């Protein structure tokens, strides 16, 4: 029976809000009200998402929202406020609220905006925005989601249930302005499709996995069929999973889970963790922290092979400093921490232009496109060298302590026997310590693909413990 597909809503004329002027105006109001310095961020975004489950539309969501954030300084004191109320009244309350809060804080000698000469925004077009993400009609968007799920369901008779197929699109604009003359803004876009099928074996045991494709431009998305088929392959290979005995064996982290290890390096190299000594990398600048062939880069200026800007690319950071490329680890040696202005001042260093900025709160530290430089081996070649080991395709839980480096997480994957993948493995943990794990990387894959702002090739790590039966 053919399904009647919902239409998308008629367009309501946009208010054409000039976010940069708005942010600059809020800064001016704050200074007028008594702030010695001020910084405002304005954001606007809209989202569309549809999930199709077992061939039928399950959820359809379409909306937009705006927000304004303000940080004010009274000398070395500061506070921040945010609001979704962009009326004149709402902005007045934002300014007076932030200033009232700043009066209850105390002086912090390291507090303050960056110095006037430091600001800047890269002039090159970074290709962060493509208007094609909204070019599909409502029925066409639903059709993308339906095809993605259908390809997964059609892949194998053991795929009999699903959490659905989805299509998402979003665009956003942001502007940042401060009282030291910086005004900048950019817009960005995203589109994605995904499938999450369930596979069931003869005993009725179920496994779920998924796959997705995301891009700044609709044109760069993988086909729904390719995504659905890959999702099915990943769910199917988990069938028959069993535990393995507790032992110490080489671990191969597949590229999509090795990303999370880089995430831990990012957290440990972040200036806030460093100045607090809350990191196993604190005080290790210039020391060997990883195997000799490991190079890790955080690049906020990168383009993807398609020509689009990377998922972590932007013209300036969360404090208005121009984006740059930082080598974090080179040939195993820690070369740079990742710093915003505050953490740099605490450490007597210069910002690496890694400030991140939400609506509320002081700037944090964010990565751009963070990656581990690829090696020469294919994933198959890495696996082929291992007599017995675990190929990890999924990690669970939060068992990473970047203060001590202790690492212990739930894992799923496939058992390696004589260089070949054999049966699926589940309900085991993999454990070690990050200080040793990065030194014990004994093979690096050639398969570096940016599926998000953090990317890693396949990595083999020796000396870790698998806990199971």
């Amino acid at each position, binding site marked *: 029976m053919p399904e009647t597909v*919902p*239409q998308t*809503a*008629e367009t*309501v004329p946009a208010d054409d809000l000039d976010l940069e002027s708005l942010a600059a105006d809020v800064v001016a109001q704050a200074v007028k009200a008594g702030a010695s310095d001020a910084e405002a961020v304005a954001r606007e975004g809209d989202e569309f998402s549809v999930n199709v*489950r077992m061939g*039928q*539309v399950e*959820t*359809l*969501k*379409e*909306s937009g*929202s*705006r*927000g304004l954030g303000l940080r004010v300084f009274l000398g070395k004191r500061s506070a*921040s406020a*945010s*609001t*979704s109320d962009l009326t004149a009244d*709402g902005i007045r309350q934002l300014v007076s609220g932030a200033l009232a*809060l*700043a009066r*209850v*804080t*105390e*002086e912090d000698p390291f*507090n303050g905006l960056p110095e006037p000469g430091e600001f800047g925004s890269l002039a090159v077009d970074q290709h962060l925005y493509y208007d094609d993400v909204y070019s599909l009609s*409502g029925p066409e968007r639903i059709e993308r989601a339906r095809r993605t799920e259908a390809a997964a369901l059609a892949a194998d008779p053991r795929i009999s*249930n699903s*959490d659905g197929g989805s299509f998402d699109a979003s665009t956003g604009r942001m502007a940042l302005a401060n009282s030291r003359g910086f005004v900048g803004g950019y817009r960005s876009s995203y589109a994605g499709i995904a499938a999450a099928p*369930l596979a069931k074996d003869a005993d009725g*045991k*179920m*496994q*779920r996995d998924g796959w997705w494709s995301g891009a700044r431009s609709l044109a760069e998305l993988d086909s729904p069929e390719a995504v659905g088929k890959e999702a099915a392959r990943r769910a199917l290979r*988990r069938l028959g999973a069993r*535990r393995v005995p507790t032992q110490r064996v080489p671990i191969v982290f597949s590229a999509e889970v090795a990303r999370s290890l880089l995430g831990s390096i990012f957290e440990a190299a972040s200036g806030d963790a460093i100045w*607090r*000594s*809350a990191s*196993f990398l*604190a005080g290790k600048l210039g020391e060997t922290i990883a195997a000799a062939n490991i190079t890790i880069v955080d690049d906020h200026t990168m383009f993807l092979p398609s020509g689009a800007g990377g998922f972590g690319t932007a013209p300036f950071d969360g404090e208005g400093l121009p984006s740059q490329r930082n080598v974090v680890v080179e040939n195993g040696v820690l070369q740079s921490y990742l710093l915003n202005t505050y953490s740099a001042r605490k450490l007597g260093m210069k910002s690496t232009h890694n400030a991140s900025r939400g609506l509320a709160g002081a700037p944090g530290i964010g990565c751009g496109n963070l990656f581990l430089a690829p090696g020469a081996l294919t994933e198959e070649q890495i696996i082929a060298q291992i007599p017995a080991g675990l190929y990890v395709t999924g990690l*669970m*839980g*939060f*068992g990473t*302590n970047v203060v*001590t480096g*202790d690492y*212990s*997480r*739930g894992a799923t994957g496939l058992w390696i026997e004589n260089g070949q993948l054999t049966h699926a493995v589940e*309900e*085991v*943990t993999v*454990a070690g310590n990050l200080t040793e794990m990065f030194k014990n990387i004994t093979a690096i894959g050639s398969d570096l693909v940016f599926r998000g702002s953090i990317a890693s090739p396949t990595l083999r790590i020796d000396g870790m*413990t698998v*806990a*199971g039966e």
Partner: protein
Amino acid sequence: MTNPAASPNPGHKRYFFEKFGITESLLERCLGQALSAGGDYADLYFESVTATSLGVDEQIVKSASQGVSAGCGIRVLSGERTGYAYTDNLSPERLLHAARTAALIASGPAKQPIQGFTEAPSANLYPVPTGGYDLDLAARLELILRADRAARAFDNRIVQVRASYAESLRRILIAASDGAFASDTQPLCRLNVFVIAKEESLTTKGSAGGGGRAGLDQFIGSKSPEFLAREAARGAILQLSAVPAPAGEMQVVLGPGWPGILLHEAVGHGLEADFNRKGTSAFAGLIGQSVASSKVTVVDNGTIAGRRGSLNVDDEGSATQETVLIEGCILKGYLSDKLSARLMGMANTGSGRRENYQSIPMPRMTNTYMLAGDDAPEDILRSVKHGLYAVNFGGGQVDITNGKFVFSASEAYLIEDGKITAPVRDATLIGNGPEALKYVSMVGNDLKLDEGIGTCGKDGQSVPVGVGMPTIKLDKMTVGGTGR
């Protein structure tokens, strides 16, 4: 577990009517638009949140921030379909536009919502500020300054202390096409302490927190700034002498309180009705079957006064309740929202929750805990020859489809010959939800709820929750350390 006397509170509703110019006739028009293309049901969810946070760091009050947000989410249900749209602009034009957008999920003749709303009397589980919402910041600063002092005084190896206080007030108003009408004002606050300890080249961390839906007077006893600060400091100092955690299957004793996160991960999520309606949970079809040892009774209870996970009404306007999930080994029921209740022909357990007005509600937990048993905690420990005693945890996670769950111990000790010996380094524990509770062989008489620190994530939506448990012994569980 008392439920204070029910009493309607017209103040919650008046707030939206006065501040945003909402009227009953506007609500009816929006619901009419929402059902203009048919559909079974529509609801409007108005939300206004004010959040404030303060932080002391290195003995300096370094940070203070506040945020205000308001918006409305409009939902239309048609069979198994959900259409959703939201707006942060509460003008009649924008609300009606959002209603028309959500309406497009259905395709049929327009339906008429029921005219006239009925607001049921609701519980009164938490205090609501009367009049304005001007916080006494000095009193709040005093809490974190006291925590800072206590943590630094604990041991001279404590080298960094950060204490923070966060408070929010969330007002909601829900109007539905079935005539249901509900409003609530939900306070929530939390005090947190984070410390770093250092001895020679070794650095460790410790943290503790507490809070709930109550006023400042809750920060006494085990939630006092001094107690929480000492707990954080004690945890960090303890880790300085920790040995590697063992690896492999062994007997595990879990302490009372927050280790109840085991229940949240092992069974709670798997019993949320949406997963079971779709057959994607390892617990699907297991109602009436044995999923635990006979000593195990697990409930989810949203009606405990002042608790972080408690709510007078859920985010669909339904009264929360105590729901028995597992009783004496048998799986009794699921946690349901309006949609799953209707589609599965089961009772709505008042479990429909959402992170905010931008989010579609779904079945969620409130406060999930195991009822007390008969065993003395010291007898439980004494019965273990070789095992792990875990008393504090970081986060957990579950794959609801295969039932595998993890939770990460941040304070644990070896048990040797019935005695607690060396503290161990952080380790993740892993198990299988439908099986794990079958190995519960002893249940303590010391049921304790956590101090009010839990936040649960599902489909990208975070909501505050509580957990609790007495001391229990699991005859078999896998500990993911590195030791032999």
